[in-house]
């Protein structure tokens, strides 16, 4: 952990309201130089709003936001030279050629003429688009577009990179390559903010901020977050029929939670040893065949389901 006090982003008590709707509710966190900070949460959790505020695209309603030493609330323009941003939707010009897009953004970021050529070549090779410099951007496949957009966001060598759901709609191979690039960035000391709703991608991050309904639910490294679940144990159950099993388990004593994951159930119990004995017997007695039941390591998705569940329980509202 680069926890050397070298803070590049500090957010304190951030609130963003749209009319009467509170999209971001008292969010605080810090990010350190060279760190990959992941924002995790379902759609509408407020991840994109936080990132847009950090980029100065939206003004905070309350709280302080310092990015690269600049108070974004007071000087949204001042932060632009230090950051690169890649939005949720692909947002380069489809009717411009690859090299024209890069030249355009190099111009906007004020990249020195002398080095702009080199930077553009670098961006092209980073995106693996050699030989496609004069293709219309609109004709590129999704993965290439994403990497080109990343290349554009990096032309001016920003200290901090904001990526809002960068891999949505991109095939798994390309996602993998994309993450390799992000790791490369962080290796060079660039702080990277990534929002995603792919739980598997969260494992690539140094630290995670879990958000739900505008609030930070939890924060920490992936192992730390997984550890949060270990109040109790997680079991994987394969049962037949699944639906009846779920119904039975949800009401049983000793079971904290049961949820469907693919074609099996994740069951969180207070005591693994006891449950491994009692549960199969109970299920069999109610006519459900228990094919297998074994303890497993909690995934981030389990963490999220648990934490989000606790939050709704506290607020008393129905879960989305």
């Amino acid at each position, binding site marked *: 952990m680069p926890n050397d006090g070298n803070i590049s982003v500090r957010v304190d008590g951030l609130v963003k309201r749209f009319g009467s709707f509170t999209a971001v509710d008292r969010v605080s966190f810090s990010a350190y130089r060279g760190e990959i900070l992941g924002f995790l949460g379902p759609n509408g959790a407020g991840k994109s709003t936080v990132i847009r505020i950090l980029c100065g695209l939206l003004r905070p309603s309350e709280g302080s936001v310092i990015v690269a030493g600049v108070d974004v609330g007071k000087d949204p*323009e001042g932060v632009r030279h230090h950051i690169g941003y890649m939005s949720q939707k692909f*947002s380069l*010009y*489809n009717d*411009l050629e690859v090299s024209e897009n890069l030249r355009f*953004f*190099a111009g906007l970021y004020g990249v020195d003429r002398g080095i702009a050529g080199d930077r553009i070549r670098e961006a092209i090779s980073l995106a693996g688009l050699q030989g496609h410099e004069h293709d219309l951007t609109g004709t590129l496949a999704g993965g290439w577009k994403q990497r080109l957009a990343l290349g554009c966001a990096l032309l001016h060598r920003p200290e901090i990179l904001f990526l809002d759901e960068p891999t949505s709609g991109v095939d798994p191979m390309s996602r993998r390559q994309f993450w390799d690039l992000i790791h490369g960035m962080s290796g060079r000391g660039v702080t990277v903010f990534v929002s995603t709703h792919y739980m598997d991608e969260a494992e690539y991050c140094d630290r995670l901020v879990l958000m739900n309904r505008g609030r930070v639910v939890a924060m920490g490294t992936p192992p730390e977050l997984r550890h949060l679940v270990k109040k109790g144990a997680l079991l994987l159950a394969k049962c037949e029929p699944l639906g009846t099993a779920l119904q039975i388990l949800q009401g049983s004593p000793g079971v904290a939670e049961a949820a469907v994951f693919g074609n099996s159930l994740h069951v969180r119990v207070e005591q693994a040893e006891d449950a491994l004995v009692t549960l199969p017997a109970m299920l069999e007695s109610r006519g459900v065949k228990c094919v297998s039941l074994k303890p497993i390591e909690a995934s981030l998705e389990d963490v999220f389901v648990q934490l989000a569940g606790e939050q709704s329980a506290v607020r008393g509202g129905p879960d989305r």
Partner: protein
Amino acid sequence: MSPRRLIAMSRKEFIQIVRDPRSLLIALLMPVMQMVLLGYGVSLDAKNIPVYVYDQEGSQDSQALLKRFQASPYFDVRKTVNSYRDLRYAIDSDRCKLAIVIPFDFSRKLRDTGFAPVQVIVDGTDDNTANLSKGYARAVIARFSADVQHNWLQRQGMPIAASNGNISVDTRIWFNEDLESRNFIIPGIVALVMALVGALLTSLTIAREWERGTMEQLLSTPITPSEVMLGKLIPYFMVGMADAALCLMMSVWWFGVPFRGTLASFFTTTALFLIVILGIGFMISVAIRNQLGASMIALLVTLMPTSLLSGYAFPIDQMPAAVRAITYLVYSRYYVTILKAIYLKGVGVKALGAEMTALAVYAAVIGLLATRAFRKTLD
């Protein structure tokens, strides 16, 4: 203001115009189409007015009068009918616009009482054509009347001097010597084309970035609002100036409209007008993120006032006072006045001082508002 960012923005915008066939069509084909269409289609001149005749008398005198109508280039005497019912049918079915009815006692009255009426029926549906043809008919009849008097006095052996009190109206028509409506309408069409092209193209520039999602990326860069505005408008300004040159060439070489002013004054005023139009288009585009809505509004605030309230075809000084007051707010009013003066009068900038000032003030205000219109935040 960084020249580097400005150039990058303008170059991008220019590539997009050139690469989008629709913008190109609007930018290049639209002016030509409008010029040809309006140049040929818009004419107020009444020529070859279809005329029916109902000659109740059939005398030498009545025939002499009718011959004069036949000889007039304004009238096309098509048919002689024998009843009012036929006339009515002819006018109802648009077969004729004007009918001459010569009463059965025409020659007798001419001889005995010295006063012979000739009935001229005009189809009042189109009031302007009716007014013009009425005027031509009056002139024909007056000339006939004068000749009859002249002959009569001669036959009476009276001195010609007795036909006293003759006044010859000695007309000098300035600026548009042949009174061709094309000459006064075509300069106005230049304004119409500029308004149309400028508004349609610029009203979309910002809206398009929103709809295609490229705006967020643009906003996250260090570019300033005034750089966005200038960078986006410079290419359209150049397109507009090129269109103006195209319109000028077509009007002079194709339609033969006289151009008596200087090119410098033409392009200076056109530049001012373009700043106004583009600024308005840009502000609309900023305010309305929906491309469709933006183009609708753009037409409403540019094309509509330019075609109706600028005086390009409908004379401003004949409008009701309230409407005339509104025209002072219509920037195209000044441009059209200047254009007509430059084309037909050839007067210098001095005589047009008031209009020039008004247009310049308009351009300055709109330009200033446009730089402030664009905000670099999402909320």
